[in-house]
């Protein structure tokens, strides 16, 4: 059984989050974030706070859909811990373009709706 490092549940999807989704980017913010950010984001409520660090080789699971983590930018873990902020780019890159990027394979984006559970699962 692989260890779940982080678990969170989607509360709602901001009205402008589509601008990012249409560019194959999912932007998450914790529910404490100010409204100008939550309106652009998928807003979530942490179920299990992050243990350790998100790393290359981990898996991000959106309900049933799993995506291997290919690259993790330098500020990803700080952002996740301090404000529940995560930027997942479905671009297949193995080097992050931006310091805040988590890169996963360039496949169709998972369905995200209120209640979707997002987990970070440690590599085997």
């Amino acid at each position, binding site marked *: 059984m692989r260890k779940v490092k982080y678990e969170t549940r989607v509360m709602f999807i901001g*009205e402008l989050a589509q601008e*990012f989704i*249409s560019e194959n980017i999912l932007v998450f913010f914790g529910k404490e974030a*100010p409204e100008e*950010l939550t*309106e652009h984001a998928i807003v979530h409520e942490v179920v299990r706070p992050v243990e350790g660090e998100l790393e290359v080789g981990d898996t991000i699971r959106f309900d049933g859909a799993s995506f291997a983590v290919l690259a993790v930018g330098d500020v990803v873990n700080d952002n996740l811990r301090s404000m529940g902020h995560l930027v997942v780019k479905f671009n297949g890159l193995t080097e992050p373009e*931006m310091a*805040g990027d988590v890169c996963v394979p360039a496949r169709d984006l998972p369905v995200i709706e209120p209640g979707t559970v997002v987990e970070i699962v440690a590599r085997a």
Partner: protein
Amino acid sequence: MAFWESFKKVLVGEPQARAQREVAVDKPDEGAVWSAARTRASGMPDGREDIGGYTKVVVEKGPRGWGGPLTIQPTKNRNLIYSVTGGGIHPVAQKIADMTGGQAFDGFKSKAEFDQLACVVINCGGTARVGVYPMKGVLTIDVYPTSPSGPLAKFINEHNFVSGVTEECVKGT
């Protein structure tokens, strides 16, 4: 959820209607400020904001940074130095507040209107916040060395954004 969202809209209007937002900082009565500014404006060209006792600073880009320099001049109505960095007030926001006399303000703790913000300090890794605040017309200071990027890049320019900023980049004039 969808029902509740629409029901809420009926009750309180669209979420973007920022007038609905709770303002945690005392906002003086607009009329009173306007007339006070007018009274004091004898030596001021029309349209200038009352700068009260606030001092301006210049914020330059840091190593590998982009944009700026930005002049931050808090005014009586626009005196908040907004920190949207998580984990409290960022030292760069605190330094700008200390040098200008503005009020450092944590965006994760309380709410403010955009027209009260002298500037915003972010620690954005390049995609979301770098564009959101320039889009809203707020002078934006990123402590990370980002360049315009992301779906909102078109709103970012050298006059509303500066990055790679450290405390040493905040200078008196």
